[in-house]
């Protein structure tokens, strides 16, 4: 099926994108996870319409799609705010202040886990969540806005960031591209980057990341010299 269903938020261009996702894989069902990200880029969450859209594109039942959508943390079943703020509260970040950051934001926004302050989708609305390990432990405590990293946070810094977001500002992440919003981040997760080449240039390696390599440079340490020519081993004898 390549046509967009009627009377939904999903227009022909979304249907075309869905088909482009399917074309990436040897088997169509592999497209389901990126397609659910695509659905979120349109509606800001996975609605029942979104489930129906995926099912139609992939020739699956709605139950099959629902089973998948409900399994994964990143698929939101209620409309998200303009921004999604995820605070790592796994052990290490928590010990360094992550729990305090989360409780500070919770009381400032007056919401709990996966709840939205403000009318979802409107400017300055924010969905808060506590997240599991975000694989940036050397930079902890960390939080993310729309999956961009804000490293080495404190309750004060995080509160300032969230207030700025509520005022319509978009403070730059420590590592990552200039901040957009949740829906645009989801479009990129679905694999669509058109016109966003400049995003690549955002900073990546934090000073922490490079510490080992820098120390080695300073002290003249290196891996052993690579030999000038290397022979491959002979082909193993056929048994």
């Amino acid at each position, binding site marked *: 099926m390549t046509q967009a269903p009627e009377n939904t938020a999903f227009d022909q261009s979304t249907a075309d994108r869905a088909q482009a996702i399917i074309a990436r894989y040897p088997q169509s069902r592999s497209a389901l996870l990126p397609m659910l990200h695509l659905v979120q880029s349109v509606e800001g969450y996975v609605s029942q319409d979104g489930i129906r859209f995926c099912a139609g594109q992939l020739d699956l039942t709605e139950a099959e799609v629902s089973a998948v959508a409900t399994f994964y943390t990143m698929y939101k079943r209620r409309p998200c705010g303009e921004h999604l703020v995820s605070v790592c509260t796994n052990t290490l970040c928590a010990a360094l202040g992550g729990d305090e950051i989360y409780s500070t934001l919770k009381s400032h926004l007056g919401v709990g886990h996966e709840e939205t302050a403000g009318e979802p989708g409107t400017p300055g609305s924010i969905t808060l969540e506590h997240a599991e390990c975000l694989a940036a432990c050397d930079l902890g405590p960390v939080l993310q806005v729309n999956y961009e990293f804000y490293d080495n946070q404190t309750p004060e810094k995080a509160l300032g960031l969230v207030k700025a977001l509520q005022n319509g500002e978009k403070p730059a992440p420590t590592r990552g591209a200039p901040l957009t919003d949740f829906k645009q*981040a989801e479009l990129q997760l679905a694999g669509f980057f058109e016109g966003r080449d400049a995003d690549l240039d955002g900073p990546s390696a934090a000073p922490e990341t490079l510490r080992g390599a820098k120390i080695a440079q300073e002290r003249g340490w290196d891996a052993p010299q690579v030999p000038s020519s290397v022979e491959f081993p002979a082909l193993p004898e056929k048994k």
Partner: protein
Amino acid sequence: MVDPLTPVLTKRWTEPRSWTIETYERTGGYTALPKALKAHPDQLIGQCKDSGLRGRGGAGFPTGMKWGFIPQGDGKPHYLVINADEGEPGTCKDIPLMMADPHSLIEGVIITSYAIRANFAAIYVRGEVLHCIRRLNAAVREAYAKGYLGKDILGSGFDLDVVVHAGAGAYICGEETALLDSLEGRRGQPRLKPPFPATSGLYASPTVVNNVETIASVPFIVNGGSDWFREMGRDRSPGPKIYSLSGHVTNPGQYEAPMGTTLRQLLDLAGGMKDGIPLKFWTPGGSSTPLFTAEHLDVPLDFEGAAEAGSMLGTTALQIFNETVSVPWAVMKWTEFYKHESCGKCTPCREGTYWLVQILQRMVAGNGTASDIDTLLDVCDNILGRSFCALGDGAVSPITSGIKYFKDEFLALCDQNSKVLAGANA
């Protein structure tokens, strides 16, 4: 004598715009690929076996042997799947690698795919790392534009397509069979093994699943040879390894050193414990590897060394905690994580983690009793080895090792309550 730090994978990270194909090629990138494509695929498998490279995703399985398990001439399509679903608490090496040097992974993917005769490879990245996904996608586009991917790569007749696949937030998808189910568009739940992915993996076809750091090492092994690789590290665990130091240390970060380096040596490079507060406990390779203490500062951190000392090397994610941190609290937080991430397929893990969390929360809140410790260990005993995958085993590691080394701290939480109960019984 090999230097204390041996930057191989991390060396290019300090280059300006390290993620671009221009930087990669200027610093020796894509020089291994033409050599590899001129060799016989079995020679590449042989070289990888000779190098002794072992999987960097946690289990340490010999990589060349894994490649060799793929049946050849079976008429089925073969697949390479990169496990970039980095999420083991403490682990933070693959994300910086892919952000700073995505082409080393892609060159490794092309060489590995050629070796196992795969024409489709997927890089399964956790969804929460958008910038990393951007960089990987851009690197794949650059590689296609240069003829390193697509049809008839460098005139070799070898074809390869690569897709970057964003996950959606599930720790369990770092388990290779759950990852394959997820990549097939299903709930990420582990499969019973055997059959192993080598014969029945993605779309029930022979599949190699390897970690990012493992495959990024491949171009360096092709260029340097197996003897060069073996100059670093120890006999059964050769090569360099990215050690990720985090927590209460002066200079946390990524330190690439020969396998078998000790925490004492690494702490020295990282400026010691933060503010001079003494070390209390640490994980050698993420939260699923049993805790170590200050007694273990001189354990050689390679697969054998960590195992002989009663833990596992895991992902060399060294989470370092000082004396200010309560062990029962840390264990409770990790257990909350495992409970959240248990996929629900196997009863011991699903139910066990659910009850473990409640007991630990009760203890940390000061409402536990000494018998709770026995209950914890009993539940752990009913999870360990009784589920499809290693998530359950990992979930009990912090608890059993925490009680092993810090039982007094658990008992201290219960002291008050034991007395009340004793009084009530009198």
